[in-house]
């Protein structure tokens, strides 16, 4: 039975797996490309402050910096847990 499943399973070509993984990681890398060096630290400290009041996960916080011609917008998204 196991053998039959194994034989029936369409093997995904490794190159297409590589491509998908690369597309994700490269997109992520490019998002970070233009951000100032202090961003990871800022993100970490903001998370610490928020955690003093609400228990949120590491990945519940999303921070980004968008630049226009004459101003920058720091955007902070925190997903708060639902009240029990």
């Amino acid at each position: 039975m196991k053998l039959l499943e194994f034989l029936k399973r369409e093997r995904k070509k490794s190159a297409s797996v590589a491509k998908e993984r690369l597309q994700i990681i490269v997109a992520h890398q490019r998002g970070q490309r233009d951000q100032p060096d202090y961003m990871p630290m800022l993100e970490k400290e903001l998370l610490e402050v928020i955690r003093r009041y609400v228990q949120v996960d590491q990945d519940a916080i999303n921070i980004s910096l968008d630049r226009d011609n004459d101003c920058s917008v720091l955007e902070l998204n925190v997903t708060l847990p639902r009240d029990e």
Partner: protein
Amino acid sequence: MAKIIVVTSGKGGVGKTTSAAAIATGLALRGNKTVVIDFDVGLRNLDLIMGCERRVVYDLINVIQGEAGLNQALIRDKRTENLHILPASQTRDKEALTPEGVEKVLETLSQEYDFIVCDSPAGIEHGAQLAMYFADEAIVVTNPEVSSVRDSDRILGLLASKTRRAERSEPPVKEHLLITRYDPNRVTSGDMLTLDDVREILAINLVGLIPESEAVLRASNQGVPVVHDMDSDAGQAYADTVSRLLGEDVPLRFHEYQKKGLLSRMFGGGRR
């Protein structure tokens, strides 16, 4: 004024030095006065690939520190006219490589040569950043493999921000993609990223494709840049790359799967 081309990649072992040697030699064979500089302080290898390791007396850092003149450090290539090699130092620490010193050397060379090819060390530290800092064009050497592609993308980020052209808001460094160690057979079987995959992910202009080839090791064994071996696929592919760098429109070769005939399967593929 010379055109300064950096050969870079981020990841080590993808063929930077092989490519720098072949491209510099190819440019010189086409009649351009060319100098190729090794920026890998402490781990120089360009001299070996160029076959001049026993003629190294002075190096880039001796010149920067004023212990030798530029003309004393430059090694004339024995096989190719118009070609000189400036080796890296094997012993000194990397900090001896200063931006001011490198700028001065490049400026002086710029008066005399048509092309200055800078062979970057691996990584994204001091040496690699200096090798790319003054560049007009960059050749990003990439293997069709995940870590190499990712590192190449990192390098593209640095080229866009940490170069003189970027800092002075001049026209950006012209980026070229050079894919090396490409194996059409493995691409066909679905186990290697295709040419178009790599192109799509990195989104820069392709300047050349070098197939995985026995000729490359043979060339480095002998200290003769592979572009001299014009019977080989890799030699021809590098010659094509040089033509494209010079602005010629050359069709791509060696990217398609060659089905072996019965005879070559029985008697071996012959020389590649």
